[in-house]
């Protein structure tokens, strides 16, 4: 089912949770809503599900106005972050719930329900768990049961809220591949919410990056990675180093920076800012340069250097520890910074979303590594 969302807004008390969302999802597409906590992604998902209601805007699914439809009548499959399995029901009864709760006239017969549940149990590879209770299952198993319960009603749209958020990294990777398979096998339109970019990019056909109630960028992994549309996206994608530069004829220049590797940008001359990932900064020892190394930490593979500039403040750089030149990069050495890649934004570009994202917050999630 195709989904059309337009001009959707939502306030909780004094907070604007959604500030005008326009989004369309094609039939059979797998879309990720990616953003930090507080970006409104879960609220948007719950509005599609009918568990929250917007203040304004439209939600149409196959030309049907879903804002006139109760959640019960939408036929969606919703998988909750903590699964929300019914604790007093066996796995089998959990999966059967959506069918057995239908009004008598529409309810399939007992044997039909049982057959459907068995089919799902096999499809999801959890047949051996059928008679267990949720309390006896591991996180990954609960996740599968929750998905089975949602799929039992043959939903038009499948919605997942942080589906792998509570799982170990290894199980996550397995389940991701498995969910992709389930999506392809059922052909349902699927939207899932995540704050983990790796997860979003690996799993989704399209990624919708959200920040502070607005959509910042919609696209495929490579495009979002290489060409972030806004400073917010750049920062969310790990470009946490924010350097002031000056643009002239599309060429950028900055204090103690070697920007020759950067492509020319079609931006007006004047002050601009450059957002760079720490791993795209290579410090080069240079006695006359203004940057000085303050600390040097190693995580084994990489050195993380904290650099300071007398006027601009601090910046961070990641360098492979085994690199030949790494030996000279010791505290108190002065360096110039060779920038291997990054994105330039005009100085005055409004920074959506950065309002409540402190500069020091690493937006890349360590847990995903």
């Amino acid at each position, binding site marked *: 089912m195709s989904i059309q969302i337009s001009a959707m807004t939502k306030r909780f008390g004094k907070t604007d949770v959604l500030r005008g969302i326009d989004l369309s999802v094609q039939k059979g597409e797998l879309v990720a809503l990616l953003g930090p906590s507080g970006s409104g992604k879960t609220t948007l998902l719950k509005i599609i*599900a*009918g*568990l929250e209601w917007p203040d304004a805007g439209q939600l149409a699914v196959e030309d049907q106005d879903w804002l006139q439809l109760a*959640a*019960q*009548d*939408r*036929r*969606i*499959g*919703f998988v*909750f*972050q*903590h*699964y*929300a*399995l*019914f*604790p*007093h*029901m066996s796995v089998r009864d959990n999966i059967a*719930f*959506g069918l057995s*709760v*239908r*009004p008598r006239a529409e309810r399939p017969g007992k044997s039909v329900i049982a057959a459907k549940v068995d089919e799902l149990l096999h499809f999801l590879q959890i047949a051996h768990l059928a008679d267990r209770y*949720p*309390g006896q299952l591991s996180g990954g198993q*609960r996740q599968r049961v929750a998905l089975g*319960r*949602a799929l*039992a*009603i043959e939903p038009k749209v499948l919605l997942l809220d942080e589906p792998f958020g509570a799982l170990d990294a290894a199980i996550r990777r397995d389940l991701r591949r498995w969910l992709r398979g389930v999506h392809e096998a059922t052909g349902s339109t699927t939207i899932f919410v995540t704050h983990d970019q790796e997860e979003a990019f690996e799993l989704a056909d399209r990624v919708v990056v959200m920040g502070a109630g607005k959509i910042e960028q919609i696209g495929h992994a490579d495009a979002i990675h290489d060409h972030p549309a806004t400073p917010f996206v750049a920062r969310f994608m790990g470009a946490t180093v924010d350097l002031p530069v000056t643009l002239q004829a599309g060429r950028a220049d900055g204090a103690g920076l070697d920007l020759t590797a950067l492509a020319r940008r079609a931006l007006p001359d004047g002050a601009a800012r450059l957002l760079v990932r720490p791993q795209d900064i290579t410090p080069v020892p240079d006695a006359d340069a203004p940057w000085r190394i303050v600390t040097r930490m190693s995580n084994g593979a990489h050195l993380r250097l904290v650099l300071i500039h007398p006027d601009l403040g601090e910046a961070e750089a990641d360098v492979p520890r085994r690199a030949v030149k790494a030996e000279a990069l010791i505290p108190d050495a002065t360096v110039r910074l060779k920038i291997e890649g990054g994105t330039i934004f005009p100085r005055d570009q409004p920074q959506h979303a950065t309002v409540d994202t402190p500069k020091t917050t690493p937006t890349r999630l360590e847990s995903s590594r």
Partner: protein
Amino acid sequence: MTAATAPIRAKRVMPGFTLSLGTTLLYLTFIVLIPVLALVLKGAEIGPARFWQIVSSPRAVAAFQVTLTAAVIATIFNAVYGLLMAWVLVRYEFRGKRILDALMDVPFALPTAVAGLSLTALFSANGWFGGVLEAAGLQVVYTIWGIALAMAFTSVPFVVRTVQPVLEDMDPALEQAAITLGARPWAIFTRVVFPAILPAWLAGCTTAFARSLGEFGAIVFIAGNLPGRTEIAALLAFIRLEEFDYNGAAAIALVLLGFALVLLVLSNLLQNWASKHREATR
């Protein structure tokens, strides 16, 4: 490293274990165990034949019947009303909710005699409710209804206070999940919410029932205490004691104790069952 290593002994993190456990056990022995033991011995002193004679005398049997019947009525009422009250206190926001919540403890805090007196005043023939009910042909005071009323008044918090926390702890996502699966409100209540609170609710009802069986102060004012008609077991034991018939009092008290113990065990079993089922799905 030459020193002989002493065996490693784990040090207790919390100090005072022996002292605090000793104190509480001593207290429990004096306040609970010894009196109960004395009661059992007193009852056993008379031998089974005499014991049976006392507890099966028409007056005693009638007293037990009245007590049990009234307690059943009171508990059924509280089971429904207490559940509703807990539901209202947890699920809705309204002005004065905190006051209502605090009021739920009044039956705990109020001296039962005061409760009995005010209920009697309200329901007697010239009281506010009594007059109306009298006109409708229903007499509360001096009947089993009065006893049940007094019991219900003093025991309702047990139901409310056991169900309330469980209802509060329920993950709202459970109901949302049921909604997305197409469940209507009634189905959500009967298939998701009620099963989740059932063990706590049953446990609350059991405790309320046990409390009703033992209620004394509130009842004696409203019951009229007619032997064989509105005389409760606890009062009969009291009367026997007043007559210096210690054995008779002990025998009746023992039967009440038996009931209380059975219910206590039942309540604990239910709580256990409850905690097993509430085992996290989160």
